Each structure stands twice: as structure tokens, then as C-alpha cells.
């Protein structure tokens, strides 16, 4: 594949252009397109030859095009090169080869190749997440445009249904990975004192699987779209004749594989690669949040994969898992989907809440108010979330006898959530509150999560669900939680860790503008939609009926503010990348390990020996003499940690 990397010069030498381009994302795309075409043509010919009407099976052709794209993309980007070189080649990779794979000496181009360095993967995830957010927001603005007046006026109802489905699925995919992807990859290994993740090549795989999934999903626009919204309910998903639905199914198969690979990587990394002295009781709360979230996703996503395989089989091979006329049942789909769907929102929530906790201690200069208490709250949320999915089926007509137990355990989740709130309030209380942009987003998260959580109680409660299920109240509730809380948590982490990841300081004025436009626009939009839902407006309304028109118009007007906030944030990022001022290595005065390494972070994270940790990174206000650096001993010698009463709570 390559000659050894360039020596110390950083310019790309012309003769190495071929080595740079192949393998890289460029060659991946070229190969992927060729492979997709080959598979498509071959399956087209085969299904036409075997069909009685000489018509190809469009769904089979579509699925095989996606398979071809996937397989050949990974061949083109060099994912299989390692197998041949080091698997069949019967020799272990040398240190120089590992470093080359980690992007040593390749400059910016390493972000466009199969690079194993967790920091590169983290940056790839970060920019992909931002782009996915931007695309998903476009879908949201289309929805608000259509719903601003009664009647299906801007878009034909089937176009609208496709837009709703694309917005939903893009945003769900984005929010699942938004914290664990960028920060779980870039920051987490440094935070636990490791040099990389446990499985660096799998790390690259998880990112490039996400990358290949995106064009698959966007291709639905050219294939007729899909009518089911992001939940993909059968039998509607089985019914459509245009192959756009297959894009949705395949996206999930690829995306869920990507997150499963990443989840296994994160769990293994935290299990075995914590540095000396970092016991489970000294793990920063951010790491706990990510670990709990990925374990939850390992439990939940297989059900999602299975449900989509069954939908694809119903579509391509005419099986009848979900068709009542042939003995199947739509309730099977609902249970499989929501068994994933409910834990999945906590997969989204746990890392964002953990980021909020992490950020708050830094900007209030206080220990976390009850580290173990908060941890028990997060664990309680994770465990309970697996057994509550039936509350999505209260009005399905099934499990009437189980409605009460599901109601009980769904409402029980409010108890560990309350623990989280107490710990957050306690961390703020009597701190030195430094109202930076990350802390503003944390405050927004707390305000919105209270509203989101309380409205969740309304939906969990059987009598109130009878007037709310399937209406815009549900939509407003999950936007308050997922967007108002979790995306705000992402932005808190984004503004907090950007100086470390990129090395530049985001403009605080634009950051504040972003926050206030977002918060005011968000509360206005979804507050109006709560009201519309209470009046009975159903979800997925291409045509907004006249009784709900005013509320929807108000919501659309507030959404303009949200749109403005997105563009302000984009401007901030671009401006900072182009001419932002450099950030300090210890930008905020935090005590976790990532702030002890220089910015930009060296390839192997820590120069010299790995640090030894002696306490939780939250010992602010400790009576021991002031320490300018975090509670680590980097001398390499084992030290007897002084017993710190606060550190043990």
C-alpha cells in the first residue's frame, strides 16, 4: 500500500499524491459507486429473468445497490488492507505501520482516510454530526414552513411525509452519536489516561460505516421517499411500491452496526485502559454517562436491526411477519421497535446529562454534589429504561392488562431523574458561577428537561395519555427532551471541548447569541405545539386543520429564531476555524486529564509516562494547599494518596 511516511517535512510531495488518494475517501467513493452499479445491474438482470412479467424486483435491486456501495467503499478506502497485510501476511504490524495508520505525517489529509487515531475519528465524527444537524434542521424548517398555514400548500402530502421521516431519522441518528461520537472518541481516552482506544481499527470502521450510511439514506429522495415517518411502522412500511423505504431500512442496518462497533470499543476501552489510580470511583462522570449509554445501546439496538431485517424480508421476499392477512401482526413490529425505541432515548440522554454534570463542576468551581448519588441516578435511569417500552402501546389495543405495570415503571424513572436534578442544583448552589457559553447551555438543558420530563409524566399516565397519544403534545414532549435537553447538552460539550479539540476559541458573543436565539425560539415553537396537541392536533399533519392553525403559525414564527441560531452557530464555527484566536491548553481551569495535555494534542496523547490519578477530578475547594494542576501525579512514581474526605463521597 504505501511507502513509509514522509520524514519530518509536512508538505505533501507530488510523487506521494497517488499514495494519498489511494486509499482514501476519494478512492472509497469511486470504488463504492462502481460496486453499487455492478451489483445493481446484476441483480436487475437476475430478477428480471426470473420474474413472470419481465419486471425487475425494485426492492431487491435497491438493496443490492446499497450492499455493493458498502462493500466496495470499504475495499476502496483500504479497510481490508490490514487483513491481507497482517492477517494473511502472518506478521504483526510494526510500530511505524501503526503510526502511519494513525495518521502520522499526513497533515490534514488524515481526516479523509482510514485513520485509526481516536482524535482523528473524534474530529471526523464532530464535523459529520454538525453537517447531519444542519441537514436535519433543514428538514425541520421545511416542516414548520408547511405547517405554518392550513392545507398542504408548500409540499404535496407525500413529499411532506418523506421530509418528516428524513428529519426524524437524521436527527435521531445524529443525537444518538452526537456526544459519544465526537467527545466519546476524542476526549474520553485522554480523560481516562489512555493513548488510544482499545480497538483503533474498529474505531475507524465505526466512523466510516456512519459515513457510508448517509448517502444511502439521502438516496430515498430519488427513490420516491418513504411514507412512514421515522418510526417506520409496518404494515405501511411494507406497503409502498417505490423503493424509498428500503433506504430507511438499510440506513438502520448500517447505522446500528456502526454504533454497535463503537459501543464495544468504548466499553472495552474504559474497562481495560484506565490509567493507574483511576478506579471506578474516580472515573469522571462524563465517562460513566457514555459507558452506561453504550451498554444500553448494546441491549437495545439488536431489536431494531431485527425489525428492519424483517421489514426488508417482507418487502423483498414477500414474507409476512407483519401482514395480518397472512398471519403476521403489526403489534410484533411495534414491540420490536419500541423495545429499542425507548432505551434509545436514554442512549441519547445519558451522555448529554453526563456532559452537563461535568461542565457544571468546572464552571461553578465545586465538586459534583453527590458523585455516587448522581451515579446511582444515571444507573437507575439506564436499568429502568429497558422495561418501559410498553407505554408507547397504551392505545394500540394490545396488552391492556400490562398497561398498569408499564405505567408504574415508566413513572418510576422520574425518581432517578429527580436525583440527577438534585445533584445538579446542589452543584450550582453556592458555587462561583462563571457564566460561560457552556454553562448557559447547561442552564437551558435544566430548564427544558424539567418541562420535558414533566410532560413525559402526562404521557406515561394512562388517563392523560388517552387525550394525548399520537398528538402534537407527544411531539412537543420529545422535542423538549431530545432537542431542548440533549442537544443543549451536546452544545455545552461542544463549546467546552472545542478549544481542546481544534485549538481555537469560539467567539463568546456569537455563542451567547446562539444560545438565546435557540432557547427563546425553541420554547416558543414547542410551547405553542403543546397547546395544539392538547386541542387534539394529530402528529404528522401535512394538512393542519383550521382549529390548530393559529398555534402552528406561532410555532413557525418562533422557528425562524431557531433557524437564525443555527446560522449564527455555523458562522461562529467557520469564523473561528479561519481566524480564531488560539486557545490555552488549560482553557477553563478544569481538573480532568484532557486539560493537562498540550493543545494540539500530541499523537500519543501523553508525552512520557502515563499519569497516575489520586482522586476524583472534582476536589474544588479542598482544604489542602492550592494546586495549579489537576489531581494527578505525573512524576511516574507511585504516591500514597492522602485520604481526602470529600473525594470519597
Amino acid at each position, binding site marked *: 500500500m504505501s511507502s513509509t511516511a514522509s520524514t519530518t517535512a509536512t508538505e505533501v510531495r507530488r510523487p506521494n499524491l497517488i499514495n494519498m488518494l489511494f486509499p482514501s475517501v476519494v478512492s472509497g467513493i469511486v470504488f463504492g459507486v462502481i460496486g453499487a452499479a455492478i451489483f445493481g445491474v446484476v441483480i436487475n438482470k437476475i430478477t428480471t429473468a426470473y420474474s413472470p412479467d419481465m*419486471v*425487475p424486483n*425494485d426492492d431487491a435491486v435497491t438493496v443490492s445497490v446499497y450492499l455493493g456501495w458498502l462493500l466496495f467503499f470499504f475495499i476502496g478506502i483500504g479497510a481490508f488492507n490490514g487483513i491481507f497485510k497482517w492477517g494473511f501476511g502472518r506478521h504483526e504490524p510494526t510500530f511505524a505501520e501503526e503510526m502511519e495508520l494513525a495518521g502520522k505525517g499526513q497533515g490534514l489529509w488524515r481526516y479523509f482516510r482510514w485513520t485509526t487515531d481516536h482524535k482523528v475519528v473524534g474530529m471526523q465524527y464532530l464535523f459529520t454530526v454538525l453537517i447531519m444537524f444542519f441537514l436535519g434542521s*433543514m428538514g425541520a*424548517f*421545511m416542516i414548520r*414552513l408547511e405547517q405554518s398555514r*392550513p*392545507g*398542504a400548500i*408548500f*409540499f*404535496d*402530502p*407525500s*413529499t411532506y411525509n*418523506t*421530509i418528516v421521516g428524513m428529519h426524524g431519522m437524521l436527527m435521531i441518528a445524529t443525537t444518538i452519536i452526537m456526544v459519544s461520537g465526537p467527545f466519546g472518541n476524542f476526549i474520553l481516552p485522554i480523560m481516562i489516561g489512555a493513548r488510544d482506544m482499545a480497538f483503533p481499527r474498529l474505531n475507524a470502521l465505526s466512523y466510516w460505516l456512519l459515513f457510508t450510511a448517509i448517502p444511502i439514506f439521502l438516496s430515498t*429522495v*430519488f*427513490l*420516491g*421517499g418513504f*411514507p412512514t415517518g421515522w418510526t417506520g411502522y409496518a*404494515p*405501511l412500511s*411494507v*406497503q*409502498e*411500491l*417505490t423503493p*424509498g423505504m428500503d433506504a430507511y431500512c438499510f440506513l438502520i442496518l448500517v447505522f446500528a452496526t456502526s454504533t454497535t462497533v463503537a459501543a464495544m470499543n468504548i466499553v472495552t476501552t474504559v474497562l481495560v485502559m484506565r490509567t493507574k489510580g483511576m478506579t471506578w470511583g474516580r472515573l469522571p462522570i462524563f465517562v460513566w454517562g457514555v459507558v452506561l449509554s453504550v451498554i444500553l445501546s448494546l441491549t437495545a439496538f439488536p431489536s431494531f436491526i431485527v425489525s428492519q431485517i424483517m421489514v426488508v424480508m417482507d418487502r423483498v421476499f414477500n414474507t409476512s411477519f407483519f*401482514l*395480518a*392477512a*397472512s398471519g403476521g401482526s403489526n403489534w410484533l413490529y411495534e414491540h420490536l421497535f419500541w423495545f429499542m425505541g425507548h432505551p434509545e432515548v436514554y442512549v441519547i440522554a445519558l451522555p448529554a446529562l453526563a456532559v452537563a454534570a461535568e461542565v457544571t463542576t468546572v464552571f461553578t468551581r465545586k465538586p459534583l454534589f453527590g458523585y455516587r448519588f448522581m451515579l446511582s441516578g444515571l444507573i437507575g435511569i439506564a436499568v429502568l429504561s429497558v422495561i418501559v417500552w410498553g407505554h408507547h402501546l397504551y392505545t394500540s389495543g394490545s396488552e391492556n392488562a400490562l398497561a398498569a405495570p408499564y405505567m408504574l415503571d415508566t413513572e418510576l424513572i422520574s425518581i432517578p431523574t429527580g436525583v440527577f436534578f438534585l445533584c445538579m442544583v446542589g452543584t450550582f448552589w453556592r458555587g462561583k458561577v462563571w457564566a460561560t457559553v457552556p454553562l448557559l447551555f447547561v442552564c437551558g438543558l435544566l430548564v427544558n428537561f424539567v418541562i420535558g420530563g414533566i410532560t413525559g409524566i402526562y404521557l406515561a399516565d394512562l388517563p392523560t395519555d388517552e387525550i394525548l397519544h399520537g398528538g402534537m403534545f407527544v411531539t412537543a414532549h420529545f422535542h423538549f427532551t431530545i432537542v431542548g435537553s440533549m442537544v443543549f447538552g451536546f452544545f455545552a460539550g461542544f463549546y467546552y471541548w472545542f478549544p481542546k479539540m481544534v485549538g481555537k*476559541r469560539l*467567539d463568546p*458573543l*456569537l455563542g451567547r447569541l446562539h444560545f438565546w436565539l435557540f432557547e427563546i425560539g425553541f420554547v416558543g415553537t414547542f410551547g405553542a405545539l403543546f397547546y395544539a396537541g392538547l386541542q387534539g392536533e394529530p402528529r404528522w399533519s401535512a*394538512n393542519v*386543520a*383550521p*382549529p390548530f392553525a393559529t398555534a402552528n403559525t406561532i410555532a413557525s414564527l418562533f422557528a425562524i429564531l431557531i*433557524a*437564525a441560531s*443555527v*446560522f*449564527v452557530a*455555523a*458562522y461562529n464555527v*467557520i*469564523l473561528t476555524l479561519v481566524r*480564531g*484566536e488560539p486557545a490555552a491548553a488549560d482553557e477553563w481551569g478544569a481538573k480532568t486529564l484532557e486539560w493537562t495535555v498540550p493543545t494540539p494534542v500530541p499523537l500519543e496523547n501523553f508525552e512520557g509516562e502515563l499519569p497516575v490519578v489520586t482522586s476524583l477530578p472534582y476536589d474544588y475547594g479542598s482544604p489542602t494547599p492550592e494546586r495549579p494542576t489537576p489531581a494527578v501525579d505525573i512524576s511516574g512514581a507511585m504516591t500514597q494518596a492522602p485520604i481526602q474526605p470529600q473525594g470519597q463521597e
Partner: protein
Amino acid sequence: MRQHSSGFIIGLVVALVLGFGIVAVVALGFQSASGLGYEPAVYQVPKTGPDSATLNIATFPDSQVCHPGAPNPQIGWVTYCSGTNNEHGTTWELPANSTITVIIKQYDSATGLYNGFFQTVQGTLGGTATYTGKTNSGTYNGPKSQVPMDDIAHTFTIQSEPDDTTSPIFVSVPLIGVPDDASSNTNVLGNDGNQYQYPAPNVIEFQFKTGPAGHTYVWHCYVPCGNDRETPYGFSGPMSTTGYMAGTITVTNY
């Protein structure tokens, strides 16, 4: 960057303008992505008098006449189109407070009707429709208020938008199918200039009244005739796509 120069403010304004511009471009892009479903151009149904108009519709077993050049699978979909020469689509404008005469030429054969509700003629003047032609069970020649379920190929059903309690319209007329053994001996000129062969059509004629202007209605077919009659497939494809077996009617003053 504590002081923010005027260049900074200009850049912010540009970013906002550019951003909303992107939103507009995306909206236009979705509107023009015809694969997602499209709204045909509006056909203003010609008036035949101060308060009457006549709407000619034809229903074909495929879309060669009305959408020539459509890709697979759409080319094989049942299609409704309108106008005396099948040159218009499924989006119509009707005059307010008028009597509308609808003449439907039905070229397709019968399929099963799942919901007996739709075998009766509803909402027309006189409660009947006039049927002329042959089906599997015999010949029709005159007004009827109900048709046997096995003779029905499609329906033409107009329904109101939600909460339209001031001027609701509900019209449903079952359309009889040509016999299964009819030979395709009638030439129809397609929109691409070619002639296509179909069986001699059955003709269904009825009248209904429109109310005041400013109301929108939707219409579509309720007989499953998509791919593979088994539920839910029968309800898919053309039945779920505007421009084929679903459309919009707006009542205006003209």
C-alpha cells in the same frame, strides 16, 4: 476578539442571509423532486354556463396515455386523467355554487371491493349515476344507485378537508369495470402522440353541486388495485400517489 469590528457584523448578516437562502433552495428542491410525489398543474374545468361545468375524466389500467415516459414502476400504474383529450391531471379547479357534470370513461377491468360502503352512489344529484357499458355480469344502460361489488373497478370519491362543517362535499361513485375478456380494440391518443389500445370503455355520468368558493377537497379511489390485491398491497402504489389515483379539487370563483 473582544471588540467586534463592523466586518464581524457584516459577516453575521451575510451568514443569516445565506442560511435562509439555503432554506429556500432546499424547499424548492423538495418541491421539484418529482419522485417524491407531485402536484400536477391545476386544470380549470371549463364552464358550460353561468353556474355549470363539465369535467371529463378517464381511468386507464396503466399510465401510458396520461404519463408517457414515466419510469418503472409508475408506467404500470392505474391512472386517472382529465380533459377531453386526457391532457390534464388530477388537480382541478371548479366554479363555486355550480352544478358539475362528471363524465368518466373507464377502461380498466373489475377488481374486488373490500369495503361495501363504497358500492353505493352517494352525494350526487338524485342519488344515482348513469352507467353505460358492459361488465362481467352483464350490460348497464341507465341510472343506478348501487352496483354489485364484483363489477367495480375503481371508485371516484371526493371528501372534505377536516373540520369543513360549513361546506362539506362527499361524493362517491363506483366505476364499473370492463369485462375480463374484452378485446383491446379502442384506440386512445396518448400525450406523446402515440396510439394505445384499450377495451371499449364503460361510461359513468353523474352530477353534484359545489358550494361557496375558498374550500379545498381531496379525491381518490377506494378500490384496492395496486400491486397484488392482498392487503395491504392493494392500497399502495398509485392509490397512494397524487397524479395517479388521488388528487385535489379547489372551489373558486371564475
